[in-house]
């Protein structure tokens, strides 16, 4: 059994799995049930001036028969009073001293407002703060959430305000609704952030009811753009996490969030430099119980790979991500069809014909054949192939000297 305990910016947790600030962390009884199920920590549903929510507030995109591959919401921060939340946080921490409770905060852009809420909340026994600079809907119209996270100067400034009075580690939660994630991340670090977490939800309209012509989710005939999350956002989150993992100035721990549904997703975040992970949509879909396989699967993975601690895999793939200009142009792969596994659906043929480089023809028995000199090794045929092992991408270059675009342009 590998050691799953983590130390995140000085906060120790029994395991690297935290619940993200969202409905599953709405209140004490829920967080306590989550801890009983095995979650290592929870970021409480964002506290601030109580708000009023709309009814009908979630919508989702399905893919084929898979429900909810992406979720969209127009929910705001907590609609419960600060006092009730703080009381429950204190009770929860008393009952579960070994588990991590992080208080997520969002108030208007005033120094006194931030000072006040930090001071009120920090003697609850909570382990840290997370500043919600990411909510992309509703709150941003009021100058909060993403409105702060999208402007690096604000990010830095508000982080500084919090650090002026906070006795606890401060995590800044970033919004993905920016063209480059690095500047706001650096700004937070400049402001004194002890750690970063990302991503919050992505601006989105999930779809339109084509009969009523009202987009989802319908609030009395109208809709507003909302925040997108769930399995579909994972690639975007992974990219942003890895960019921070690679950035020399971002030298604080990272909490990876976005589309994590099982232990394998979590391992990917850890490999790309996240020090722990947070989960929301998968729990909203299946319940707290999914933590059981997350822990079990991670444990077995670490054991199988011979790692003693989860710390040993953090950042292991960071060095494998580079700029395009550093990639080896001499590396050459081609597609090969393995007839014994081929089911003759011809999807490879048509994908290459109309979507790539017209490399396929058929042999006398009707099996697709690749014209290797024509194949550019794009992977498309292998990606569309439904039959495992029917198409392999085979390396054909000699493995000789590396040639990169950067080398080529610097020499010339």
């Amino acid at each position: 059994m590998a050691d799953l305990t983590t130390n995140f910016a000085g906060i120790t947790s029994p395991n690297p799995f935290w619940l993200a600030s969202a409905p599953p962390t709405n209140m004490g009884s829920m967080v306590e049930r989550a801890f009983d199920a095995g979650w290592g920590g929870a970021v409480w549903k964002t506290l601030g001036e109580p708000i009023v929510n709309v009814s009908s507030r979630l919508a989702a995109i399905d893919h084929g028969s898979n429900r909810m591959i992406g979720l969209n919401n127009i929910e705001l921060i907590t609609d419960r009073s600060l006092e009730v939340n703080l009381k429950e946080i204190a009770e929860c921490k008393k009952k579960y001293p070994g588990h991590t409770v992080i208080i997520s905060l969002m108030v208007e852009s005033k120094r006194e407002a931030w000072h006040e809420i930090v001071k009120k909340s920090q003697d609850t026994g909570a382990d840290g703060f997370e500043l919600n600079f990411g909510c992309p809907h509703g709150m941003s119209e009021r100058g909060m959430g993403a409105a702060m996270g999208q402007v690096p100067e604000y990010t830095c400034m508000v982080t500084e305000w919090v650090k002026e009075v906070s006795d606890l580690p401060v995590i800044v939660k970033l919004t993905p609704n920016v063209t480059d994630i690095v500047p706001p991340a650096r700004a937070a670090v400049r402001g004194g952030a002890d750690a970063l977490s990302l991503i919050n939800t992505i601006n989105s309209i999930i779809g339109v009811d084509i009969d009523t012509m009202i987009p989802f989710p319908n609030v009395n005939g109208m809709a507003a753009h909302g925040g997108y999350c769930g399995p579909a956002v994972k690639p975007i989150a992974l990219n942003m996490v890895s960019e921070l993992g690679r950035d020399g100035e971002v030298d604080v721990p990272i909490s990876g969030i976005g589309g994590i549904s099982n232990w394998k997703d979590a391992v990917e975040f850890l490999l790309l430099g996240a020090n722990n992970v947070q989960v929301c949509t998968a729990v909203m879909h299946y319940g707290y119980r999914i933590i059981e396989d997350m822990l079990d699967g991670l444990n077995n993975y670490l054991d199988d790979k011979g790692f003693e601690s989860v710390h040993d895999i953090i950042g292991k793939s960071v060095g494998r991500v580079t700029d395009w200009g550093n990639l080896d142009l001499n590396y050459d792969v081609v597609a090969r069809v393995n007839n014994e596994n081929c089911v003759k659906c011809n999807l490879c043929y048509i994908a290459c014909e109309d979507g790539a480089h017209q490399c396929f023809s058929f042999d006398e028995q009707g099996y697709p054949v690749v014209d290797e000199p024509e194949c550019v090794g794009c992977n498309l045929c292998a990606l569309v192939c439904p039959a495992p092992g029917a198409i392999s991408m085979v390396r054909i270059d000699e493995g000789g000297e590396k040639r990169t675009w950067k080398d080529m342009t610097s020499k010339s």
Partner: protein
Amino acid sequence: MPDYKTKLSTAEIEANFAEIDPKMTEAEALFEANRCLYCYDAPCTHACPTHIDVPSFIKKIASENLRGSARVIFDANPIGASCARVCPVEVLCEGACVENTLVEKPIQIARLQRYATDHAVEGDIDLFQIPESNGKTVGIIGSGPAGLSCATYLARLGYKVTVYEKRELAGGLDTYGMAEYKMSQKDSLDEVEMIGRMGVEFRLNTSVSPTKGHEEPRREKKLSNAGERNASLSVPSTQHTVVDQIAFSDLCDAHDAVFVAVGLGKTNDLGIPGEDNEGVFESLEFIGEVKKRAWHDVPLGRTIVVIGAGNTAVDVVTQSKRLGAEKVIMVYRRTRAEMSAFDYEYELAKSDAVEFIWQASPLEIVGNGRVEALRCKKNDGSLEVFEIRCDMIVKAIGQEKMTDFFGAVEIETDQKGRVVVDASMRTSLENVFAGGDCVNGGAEAVDASQAGKRAAAGIHKSLFGENVEFTGQGSSTKCP
């Protein structure tokens, strides 16, 4: 033995006995696992007599955590690999799957279960940590599903467990009774071996006799090739040894508690004239011969009449057909509607071109030292008497209870000959527990497994005064 010889070649028979539910490929397993809805408080888990957390083990297949998946299964059912092959899932987990209502196609739970358990069994993966000895020993009589399950849970609690088995191979009917196209002896013995690795000792060829001096005469028996690893648990070669006898009272003296899991006896006799003719077999004898896979040595008739209409009768007719009998007729005294075999078993027999004669009671086996015909009387009101010409008859009308054994050791049984137990599976004797077919009168392997689990908890409570709830026993507390 009838003179008839099958016209099928070994290869043809092998093909007929190919596994009815072959192992899934990785692609199949992932596809099917991802189709599972991961229901909460799932009906499949309720429907499983051992309450395996089905959505959990399937989710783990989807996340490619196969070891974890196998652990979930074996945690609730120590014979999960056997059950994956032999359980009547149409009336259990798969029958309860909500996908029946959504798309009329349940998740293939049993095949997924096999996929996960094979991973552990084939990889010799030890899923449970066995604690230090707790100082107590338990003797188990019978190595069938009930005995194996009880042994596993007790070993996991630190008991020193010895299983006494009168036959040369362990596994009970898992090893000697399952239709060969569902499960081979090797599959059963591999699972036994996994249980052996938990420190459970198997004393094979060791019969427990009801009283001292009541011992059966020592029999010459074939035993496995001693010397090779776990030789005693693998398919035997042809070495000879004797069956040991140990008296029940000595067993009780030697152990702190005893679990009786002796199953049922031989197939009931018909009680009609002519049963001693050559060519009359009892079902378990016939099935036992099939299990050896020496296809051309199995007694076979040109026309075989099988009496009875339970699942065992179906196993006999389908396997006779698959061996190459020309004509196989199932004779049952009541109607199709009253047949006790599961519907899908009946469908299987039908698709194997078995013929059925309903509402006919056997009167006499006609023969002159050798079977020539079965004389029957119609029960449909006509009272017509007729003969079915045949050269082989197999009796499959249920197994006898071991009432003599229980009477001699003074374990109370009910009017039907079933051992009487309390909620903790305790018999009328102090520290003697019982479970499986000998208690329920004959059910499924999975029921025997659950009984073994409950008995292990009962034994622990009795010896240590401690309540332990194993996974799927009824509440949520997990086994250590």
